[in-house]
């Protein structure tokens, strides 16, 4: 078992520090928005989580394709690690978005393109996990997961576009519920700086978590191998 690489330890500490700094920036540095007040601060974490979710999605989709080409199981580990992490980050994004939406738009949910697509994406992730659960053979599990990731990855943009088109023809009228309302506060420079800082922080956190999860996956595989040897 390889000990934790120094780079990972460094990243962990860095993530922790960045996170504290980000919190500081959000609460102390960024100004309070005129119309929405304190609630608006959720925006920084909401956006960062959504961004990381997207990142994870892209990593998962690419790993899937690479696995199908190379047949190296380590890409399978990267793929499902990315899916798991992306699932959680997207969930946080959706929930934080809802918390922000209630005082701002008067409702927890609207059926706008972004939210709906995010919800569908979560369903695809859950379906992915259920798929994996139903297969014992590691090679088959990796193949099927990669195929499903590919199908999911291609369908999500089409889904987003379809719902967008649906909306322009039938705009969603629930208070200020159009998806443009999200960006409808002007951002001062300090807000922009805070936002980018948060994005970077969360990206670092993502990479750290992904690395941990991949290690966990590899260790788990080693345990399986040892178990099998003992049973021989």
């Amino acid at each position, binding site marked *: 078992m390889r000990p934790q690489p120094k780079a990972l330890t460094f990243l962990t500490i860095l993530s922790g520090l960045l996170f504290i700094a980000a919190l500081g920036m959000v609460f102390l540095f960024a100004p309070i928005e005129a119309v929405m007040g304190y609630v608006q601060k959720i925006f920084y974490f909401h956006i960062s989580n959504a961004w990381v979710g997207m990142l994870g999605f892209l990593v998962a989709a690419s790993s899937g394709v690479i696995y*199908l080409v190379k047949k190296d199981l380590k890409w399978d580990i990267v793929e499902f690690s990315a899916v798991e992490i992306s699932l959680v980050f997207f969930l946080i994004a959706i929930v934080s978005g809802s918390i922000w939406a209630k005082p701002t738009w008067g409702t927890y949910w609207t059926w706008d393109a972004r939210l709906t697509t995010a919800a*569908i*994406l979560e*369903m*695809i992730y*859950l*379906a992915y996990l*259920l*798929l994996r*659960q*139903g*297969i*014992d053979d590691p*090679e*088959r599990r990796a*193949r*099927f997961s*990669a*195929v*499903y990731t*590919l*199908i*999911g990855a*291609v*369908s999500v943009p*089409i*889904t987003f*576009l*379809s*719902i967008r*088109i*649906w909306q322009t*023809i039938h705009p969603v009228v629930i208070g200020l519920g159009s998806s443009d309302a999200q960006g409808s506060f002007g951002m001062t420079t300090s807000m922009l700086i805070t936002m980018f800082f948060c994005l970077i922080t969360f990206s670092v956190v993502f990479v750290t978590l992904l690395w941990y999860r991949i290690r966990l996956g590899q260790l788990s595989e080693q345990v399986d191998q040892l178990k099998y040897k003992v049973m021989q």
Partner: protein
Amino acid sequence: MEKLAGINRPSSPYLKAIGSIVWKDLLAELRSRELISAMLVFALLVILIFNFAIELQPDLRITITPGVLWVTFAFAGTLGLNRSMAVEKDRGCLDGLLLAPVDRSAIYFGKALGNLAFMLIVAIIVLPVYSLLYNISLFNPGLLLVVLLGSTGYAAVGTLLSSMAVQTRTRDVLLPVLLFPVIVPVLLAAVKASGGYLQNLPMNEIWPWLNILIAYDVIFTAISFMVFEFVVEE
């Protein structure tokens, strides 16, 4: 060793293989009628239930009809997909197909076309029944076009995913879970386009939906047939 003339060709013509598989599926279904009767009974039940679940006042019916129809097709469709693949898996017939010197993608097209045929047969029966029960004329060539396009996209992805689902432990439950999130564009576009035709909306409002359907069909048929061998070969 006796050798019969003309037998050992490396692989049989592609289209002939697809045709044989479709023919085999239709013939078997004609004999047992298990698949279609299950889909049909289910579809009719769903339509009946909708009568009680949603107050279908006459003037509202036109707007609600596309949604009801496509929900029905979507759910009945999973029944058909599941059973079509289960037949191959349970008697090991999928191995029989894989042992033959035919391209894996030919197997995909054969099964997909068979599944499409079953969906269309069910639709052809369900539409007139719905018309009678709810007093709405569904004999609309535009609507039939949408049914064709929507079913094609559904069958294209559904065949691939059911081939996966049937090889897992959680087989029956898994297919709808895998399929529905991915089929949302088809359902949305099909419902909007159907509604457009039924309400006689101008073509420029229907076109975006038809485009989405066609794009989806093309993209996913292409992906599915390329990726099918990863799903059936070990």
